[in-house]
């Protein structure tokens, strides 16, 4: 699952640099390069348009549906706010905390011409848990959820560490990781000189008692009249977030702003490149 929010910001920066290079710097008076500049602008425009519409629809759905109380929730797409409660024991993979849901991402540094922190693992828990409000509780199946959770823990592991501990000593390995400070869901400090093979571990999770927002499909369980929330076949929206609707909307609005910027970039790119091709 793509780490949407963090990578979208990087995508906008890369797209802007690529846009300036392909549209303004590379072509000059060369018609062959002008064609590439047109393609670059068109690609940015189409990406911006498709995803702006997608995120705008998501935002509308969140704003259009009021909260339901659990005791009277109706079958279909519903929005619930409550607190998380566990059904079975679940631990976060690195920090080993009791949780109800987690998402765990591992990135490894690859040095060279296109150095980056490559995604090695993106895993989420699929165990059901409960959401509770003042009127009752309801089960959630979090499989295939679109998580709008805040980053809670981040760790750095130099390559040397994996040479000290074997695969069987994973508990010792995780205990020796260096924690990266997190402020408002963002890494506070950057690793300035990473080496090839260094790793970063990210944890997003919900603890028992955490405030939770969920937008999903309410259905009756098979051979039972008990209701639960899951990703419906016909409803494509299934959102899980920390706190409340406003917190989730802030993240959605940020995505919308970044994607709108790409869209406008694409429009201006096309407006610049097309006339040059025709003249």
């Amino acid at each position, binding site marked *: 699952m793509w780490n949407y929010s963090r990578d979208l910001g990087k995508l906008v920066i890369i797209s802007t640099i690529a846009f300036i290079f392909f549209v303004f710097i590379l072509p000059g008076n060369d018609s062959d390069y002008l064609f590439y500049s047109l393609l670059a602008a068109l690609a940015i425009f189409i990406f911006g348009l498709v995803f702006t519409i997608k995120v*705008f629809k998501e935002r509308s759905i969140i704003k*259009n549906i009021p909260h339901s109380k659990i005791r009277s929730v*109706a079958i279909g797409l519903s929005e619930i706010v409550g607190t998380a409660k566990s059904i079975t024991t679940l631990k976060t993979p690195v920090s080993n905390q009791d949780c109800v849901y987690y998402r765990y991402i591992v990135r490894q540094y690859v040095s060279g011409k296109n150095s980056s922190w490559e995604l090695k693992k993106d895993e989420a828990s699929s165990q059901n848990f409960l959401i509770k409000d003042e009127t009752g509780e309801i089960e959630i199946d979090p499989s295939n959820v679109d998580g709008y959770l805040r980053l809670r823990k981040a760790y750095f592991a130099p390559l040397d560490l994996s040479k000290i501990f074997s695969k069987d000593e994973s508990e010792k390995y995780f205990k020796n990781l260096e924690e990266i400070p997190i402020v408002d869901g963002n890494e506070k400090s950057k690793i300035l000189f990473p080496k090839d093979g260094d790793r970063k571990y990210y944890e997003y999770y919900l603890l028992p008692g955490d405030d939770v927002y969920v937008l999903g499909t309410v259905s009756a369980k098979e051979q039972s009249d008990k209701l639960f929330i899951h990703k419906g076949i016909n409803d494509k929206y299934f959102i899980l977030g920390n706190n409340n609707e406003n917190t989730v909307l802030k993240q959605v609005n940020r995505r919308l702003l970044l994607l709108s910027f790409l869209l406008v970039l694409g429009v201006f790119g096309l*407006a*610049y490149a097309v006339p040059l091709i025709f003249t």
Partner: protein
Amino acid sequence: MIGLYIIIGFIILFLIIAFIIIYNNLVKLKNNISKAWANIDVLLKQRFDELSKLIDTVKGYMKYEKKVLTDITKARSMYDNAKGIKDMADSNKFAHESTNNLFAVAENYPDLKASKNFLKLQSRITELENMIADRREFFNDTVTIYNTRIKQIPYNTIAGILGYKRKELFVASGEEKKVVDFDK
């Protein structure tokens, strides 16, 4: 010059897409109201079905409380003949008051109060009353979102052109929101 035409073209394209998105949004908001209303209706029907069973249970005990029992039947008749939200709200209010009266009168019949069947029905109807109150609140929130949206820019322009009008809230009197506490 071509660049200017392209920008104008994109502005027109943007306006068309914006119109489609706003129109679809208004349709969804309207459908949300219909769905919210249907979800209340389901519970109102269930409540009247339970009330019918309750009348069958209590009429043997409460032979001389004819008015209380006929009021419930009258509430059902009002519901069946209701046209529109106001009629539904009135029938619901009457049903709620009649149910409360019936439960209050049942306090005078210790044999009835001890009946398991009566207690079960009483509990079920109280549960339904709470759910109806929740769904009325949900319906009113849905209507408020719609009413607000058709007044906001740029929705008001398209809503005005297409004739989208304000919707009525399901107005409940103060008594309807009370749930009789049988533990007192």
